């Protein structure tokens, strides 16, 4: 039986967990409110007037005043912020000034498009970037290493805008291998809207769940190119990082020991070294994934992709603050979520982190 006094000092297992969860929730809340406060007050410093952007050039003063009152913009800034946070805590992100739709509905429509694109892009980036980086590290200075570096450098430095247009021109315009801009062809888009039950907003998943493989295939043909483009950018980053982690690892004594003991080179690299590179790699992939989940504005513009990046940017341009703030919350949540997920993965791959 435990000593009652000792019980006070060392909290029980459940107590510790509760404290941890409580701490996490508290940190999350503070992070979110901080994030909102920064976005909110920056937006109010920007001189764009949302009322002007909806009413346009011909509006009379009376109409402007009425709209300002209706949107609550005539109240003190602190009050506006307070009301916003209070509503947000209850799950109400407000109504978009421009479209007059609830922000939550709009995000529910835009975010899955980005999620779908970013996920495929990250898978491509990872599948190509990690092996390329490892191979480059095993033969530094070789032709393969040079090629990987050059390709990576191009991914870093070429304007996405240009790459996207060239990709469209070649693979869509000339070769006809992939579908064009947008998530679907017009005909399939109409089928998607009127014949398919949407569960997730991600077309590939929804059509698969509905067994509509015709639409699935069309959606795939549309997502391949933008996903490959973003995958390329993420590959450039992942392969560079993998190479440098791997180089570092291969210089360690335990690798030399393994080699001396006659272990096959493949096993040395792909099992022993890779295991240890895994932890920093998870961080790199997670960072690259969360970056893509913010939405890639230029890619979304060229590919007429109705994603989160374009949503937030368009909203910013007309000072549609409820939309901007709603989008910010989602991006913040994504960052925090992915960070927590990668923490979890650390524990799985690294026994020391348990």
């Amino acid at each position: 039986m435990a000593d009652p006094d000792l019980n006070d000092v060392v909290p029980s297992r459940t107590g510790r967990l509760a404290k941890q969860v409580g701490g996490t929730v508290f940190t999350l809340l503070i992070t979110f409110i901080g994030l909102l406060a920064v976005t909110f007050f920056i937006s109010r410093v920007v001189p764009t007037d949302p009322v002007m952007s909806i009413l346009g050039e011909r509006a009379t003063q009376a109409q402007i005043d009425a709209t300002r009152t209706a949107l609550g913009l005539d109240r003190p800034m602190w009050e506006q912020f307070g009301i916003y946070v209070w509503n947000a805590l209850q799950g109400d992100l407000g109504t978009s000034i421009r479209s007059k739709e609830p922000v939550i509905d709009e995000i529910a429509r835009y975010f899955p498009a980005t999620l779908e694109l970013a996920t495929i892009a990250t898978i491509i980036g990872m599948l190509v970037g990690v092996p390329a980086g490892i191979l480059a590290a095993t033969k530094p200075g070789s032709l393969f290493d040079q090629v990987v570096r050059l390709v990576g450098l191009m991914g870093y430095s070429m304007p996405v805008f240009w790459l996207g247009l060239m990709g469209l021109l070649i693979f869509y315009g000339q070769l006809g291998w992939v579908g064009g801009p947008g998530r679907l062809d017009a005909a399939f888009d109409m089928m998607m809207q009127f014949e398919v039950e949407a569960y997730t907003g991600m077309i590939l998943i929804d059509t698969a769940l509905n067994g509509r493989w015709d639409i699935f295939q069309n959606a795939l043909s549309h997502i391949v190119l933008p996903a490959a483009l973003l995958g390329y950018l993420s590959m450039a980053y992942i392969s560079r990082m993998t190479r440098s982690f791997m180089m570092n690892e291969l210089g360690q004594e335990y690798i030399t020991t393994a080699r001396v003991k006659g272990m096959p080179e493949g096993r040395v690299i792909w099992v022993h070294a890779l295991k240890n590179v895994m932890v920093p790699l998870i961080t790199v992939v997670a960072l690259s994934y969360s970056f893509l989940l913010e939405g890639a504005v230029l890619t979304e513009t060229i590919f007429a992709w109705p994603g989160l990046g374009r949503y937030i940017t368009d909203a910013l341009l007309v000072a549609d603050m409820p939309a901007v703030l709603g989008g910010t919350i989602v991006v913040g949540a994504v960052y925090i979520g992915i960070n927590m997920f990668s923490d979890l993965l650390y524990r799985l791959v690294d026994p020391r982190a348990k």
Partner: protein
Amino acid sequence: MTYLPFARHAGAAGLAALLLGAAPLALFAETPADTLVIANAIDDIVSLDPGEAYEFSGLDLINNVYDGLVEINPTTLEMEPGLAESWSVAEDGMTYTFKMKAGITFSSGNPVTAEAAAWSLQRAVKINKTPAFILNQFGWTAENVDTMIVGAGDTLTLKVDKPYAPTFLYNCLTAGVASIVDAEVLKTHDVDGDMGGVWLNSNSAGTGAYVLKSYKPNEGYILEARPGYWRGDAKLAKIFMMHVPEAATERLQLEKGDIDIARTLTPVEIEGMAANADVKIQQDVGGQIYYLSFNQKNENYKNAKFLDAMRWAVDYQGMADTIMKGTVIPHQSFLPQGYLGALTDLPYSLDVEKAKALLAESGIAAPTVKLSVRNSADRMDVAQSIQNTFGQAGITVELDVGEGADQLKTYRARQHDATLQTWGPDYPDPNTNSSTFAENPDNSDEANNTGYLAWRNAYDPGEMTAQSQAAVLERDPAKRIEMYAALQTKHRETSPFIVMFQQARNTGVRANVQNFYTGGAVDAAAYWLVTK
């Protein structure tokens, strides 16, 4: 065993599989035979309620889903009866009587009645959104509109506050805000007194050739034809509008045949497609005009010689031929081509020596113009050309580049020095531009008459205000044309406005697409006549 070969191929194989899996279907992509697929930048849409819609893309939709009492024929751009069969005006010019056509129904099946027509106009006045001013001009207010506009049986009676030129009223009734809506349906969708406004953003309640099937802001909309349209059934069953903000993307889609019509093409794309036999370019003019204006709070801009010097220091033709190629035509009066009484002559051209001489005569030494420009590529190009030619004439131009809505705010508060702006007419009557460019009933700051461009530039047009007000009351059309001609001439010679261009439109259409009309300077696009 080694792991290397597998790893080397895994990524490439995955990518190839994705590409190959997608390939077969992409090859056969084409637009469905019964659907017109249009790509356009439609992020200007604020509302699909005809009482509120006031942007180009929104009005295009409204034109195909709703009708007014009076309509504009899309092919001739002439006025013709819409939901009203005939109309007349009383001797005193204060009472109009419209006889409604029989047998027309809304998409709900409800009949179109004079009561519904009256309710529609009353509604637009009462909800008082941006375009309401088009109707308010006739003295209609939320308080009096129920007695000024009365519908009974097949007769609609409109009372106005002054004996206006009848064409003025008829022209205004062709605007989107005067669309007739299904009163019975909208009454059941009222939220907080919006008379169905929110509901109309995802539904329609009109008499048009199409009904709204779906609308997703910044993504697109789908319209579906309804049988029995009073002007003849739509030729194509569906309209699929896709929001494509990037012109180069639109071009690819058009050449590929994934869209039938591209509406946001720039001169670069037009030129690039010249050799493609699958695509044709339709050219016409839009109603927008490009102008420079100078705030007369700066005394320099009251100097007639200085204003004249600037008029001769703009390279109208050069800009239209190079940086603005295909998107504008030179135009130098406040009424756009296509409007009653519009002047299309071009008295001014670039003449640096003349400008220099006029500047010397003005007595203003080394003037500096602070020109506000919105941060878009074409505006910047124009501003830089002006900076260059003004510079040659001895006038320094400082560019003040900023975001559009922000600059508009400054302009409306008349805090700018000079500005490069565009203006699109509100309804197909000359009064729309004449009233704003040439009238300013009260030039004081307190008046806050932001609706008058003259006021925004602190410009008192003197007797022109009265002349323009008289023109809108002139019931003899020939005389009315003369009055507007005189106003335009005087305005361009004396006002602090320099009108430079009128918008030209380039629409890319697939070779098989016929009968797509954009509405020119006076109306919105018509989809229901299009065949392919």
